[in-house]
C-alpha cells in the first residue's frame, strides 16, 4: 500500500514539470536577466530605474491606483457580502448572477464599456447634463478617478466572493448569542462579525490589489498612454521601445510586488486563523 501511495505522487509530475518549465523557469530567468548586464552581475538597471523621477512617478501612481481600487472595492464589497450571507432564494440568485456573469464576460469587453460611459459626450456626461448637475461635459476619460472606478468594477467579484464565503460559513447564532448576552449592535459587529470575516477581507484585498497593480488592459483603454503604469511601461519597453533591459527590470519589480502580496496575505490569513 505504501508503495502505491508513493507512486501516486508521480501523477503530479506531468503537470508540475510543465509549470516548472513553461512558467517557473521563464520567470526565474527573467529575474536573473534583470540582474545581468553582458553576462555580469549588476544592479545598474535598478539604479537607473530608481534614479529616474519619471519612473518613480509611474511606480507611485501604480501603487496608488491599486490601493484606491482595493479600498473602493472593499467599501462596496463588505456590505454586499453581509447582505448576500443573509438572503436566500431569489435575492441570492440575483447577487450570484451579478457576481458570476461579469466575471465571465472578460476584461476587454468591460474596459471597453467604461470608455463608452466616460466619453466626453458619453452616457454619464449626458445624464449629468440633462439632470442639470453640470452645464458642460466633464472630462472623465483619461483621469485617475475613471481608472479607479473602472478597475474596482472589474475586480469587485474577487473582493465580494471571499468575504461572502467566510460570512456564509459563520454560525449565525454567534451574533445572536452575543445579543442575548446584552451586546450592542456596534459591539457585536466589532467583536464578532468583523474579526470572523477578516480572513475573507485579507484574501479578497490581496487578490484585488495584486490584480490591480499589474492590470494592463483597463488603464491602456481608460487613461491611455499619457498616464503610464508599471504594466504599460513594461509592454512599451518590449513592444515599441525594444528596450528589453528596462522591461525586464520593471517586470521583476512587478513580480516582487505580486509575490510579496501573496506571501504577506497568506501569512496574515494564517495568523488571523490561528487567533480564532
Amino acid at each position: 500500500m505504501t508503495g502505491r501511495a508513493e507512486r501516486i505522487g508521480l501523477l503530479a509530475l506531468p503537470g508540475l514539470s510543465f509549470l516548472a518549465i513553461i512558467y517557473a523557469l521563464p520567470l526565474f530567468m527573467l529575474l536573473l536577466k534583470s540582474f545581468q548586464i553582458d553576462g555580469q552581475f549588476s544592479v545598474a538597471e535598478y539604479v537607473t530605474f530608481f534614479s529616474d523621477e519619471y519612473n518613480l512617478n509611474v511606480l507611485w501612481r501604480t501603487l496608488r491606483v491599486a490601493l484606491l481600487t482595493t479600498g473602493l472595492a472593499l467599501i462596496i464589497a463588505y456590505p454586499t457580502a453581509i447582505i448576500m450571507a443573509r438572503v436566500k432564494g431569489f435575492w441570492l440568485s440575483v447577487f450570484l448572477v451579478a457576481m458570476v456573469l461579469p466575471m465571465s464576460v472578460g476584461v476587454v469587453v468591460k474596459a471597453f464599456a467604461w470608455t463608452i460611459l466616460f466619453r466626453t459626450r458619453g452616457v454619464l456626461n449626458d445624464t449629468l447634463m440633462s439632470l442639470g448637475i453640470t452645464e458642460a461635459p466633464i472630462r472623465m476619460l483619461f483621469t485617475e478617478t475613471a481608472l479607479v472606478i473602472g478597475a474596482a468594477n472589474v475586480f469587485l467579484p474577487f473582493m465580494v466572493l471571499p468575504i461572502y464565503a467566510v460570512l456564509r460559513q459563520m454560525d449565525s447564532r454567534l451574533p445572536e448569542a452575543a445579543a442575548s448576552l446584552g451586546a450592542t449592535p456596534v459591539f457585536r459587529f466589532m467583536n464578532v462579525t468583523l474579526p470572523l470575516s477578516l480572513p475573507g477581507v485579507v484574501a479578497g484585498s490581496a487578490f484585488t490589489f495584486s490584480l490591480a497593480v499589474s492590470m494592463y488592459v483597463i488603464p491602456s483603454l481608460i487613461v491611455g498612454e499619457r498616464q503610464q503604469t508599471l504594466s504599460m511601461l513594461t509592454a512599451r519597453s518590449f513592444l515599441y521601445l525594444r528596450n528589453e533591459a528596462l522591461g525586464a527590470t520593471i517586470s521583476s519589480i512587478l513580480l516582487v510586488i505580486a509575490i510579496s502580496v501573496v506571501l504577506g496575505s497568506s501569512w496574515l490569513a494564517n495568523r488571523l486563523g490561528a487567533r480564532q
Partner: protein
Amino acid sequence: MTGTDRLALSLSWIIALGCVFFLMLPIVITLAASFTSSAVYTLPPPEWSLRWYQSLERRLGLWDAVALSLNLAVVSTMISLVLGTLAAIAVARGRFQGREAIATFTVSPLMMPGLVVGVALLQFFREIGLRDAYWSLLLGHIVITLPFVMRTLLASMAAFDFSLVDAARTLGLSYPRAILQVLVPNLAPAYLTGGLFAFLASMDNYPISIFLTDARNKTLPIKMLQYLEEQPDPSLAAISSGLILLACIVLIIGSRTVGLNRMIQG
C-alpha cells in the same frame, strides 16, 4: 431589532443593490450600444438597428481571430483537465512531503501579473528557438487555464471518497479505468466549472497573448483592441455582445448542472 441595527441593515441593502447595478452596468451599456443605428456611441441610440452586427460578416480578419481563440481555449482547457486530474489525484492521495506546496504552486499563476508571465515566456521561447506563434500561444494558454482547473479539482477531490475507486479496482478494473469510470463522472461538476472558467479565461486573455502573437496569429482580444485603436465604430460593441452571450450560455449551463453557489466555491 434596535434602531441602529435597522439603519445599518438598510444602508447595507442600499450599497448591495448599488453594487448589483454597478456590476451589471458595463454589460447593459455594451448591449445597448451594439444596437445603435449611429456610427458613434450615443445612448440611448437614436434608432435601433442591426447594422453593426451585419458589418461583422465582412470582417474576415475577425473570424480568423475568433477561430484561433476558440481553438486555443478548447485545446488548452482539455490539456489542463488531463494534467490537472493527474496532479490533483497525486495531491489528494499521495503520501509525500510538500503536497501543500504543490497545490499552492499549481494555482499560483492566477496571482502572478499576466504581463510578466507573457514577457518571461517571450524571452524563454526565443531562447529555446520556439518561433511558431500557435505553439507559443498554446503553451502560454495552458499556463492560464491550468490554475482554474486545479483550483476546483483540488477542492472537489479533497471531498471525494476514494474508497469508491478502490472498490472498482477490487471488482477488476485497472487503476486508469477506475479513475475514468468512477472518479471522473463523480467529479463532473468540478470538471464543468473548472473547465468553463478556464475556457473563458483563455478566450479573454490579453496580457500573456500579446507577447506571443505574430502578424498572422492574433487572438480575439488582441484583434478587438487593435480595432478600437484603428476604427472605433460600434461593430466592437457587437463583437462584445457576442462574448456576453457566450458568457450567459456558460452561466446557464453552469447554474443548471452545478448550481450558482457551487460554481463560485472553487
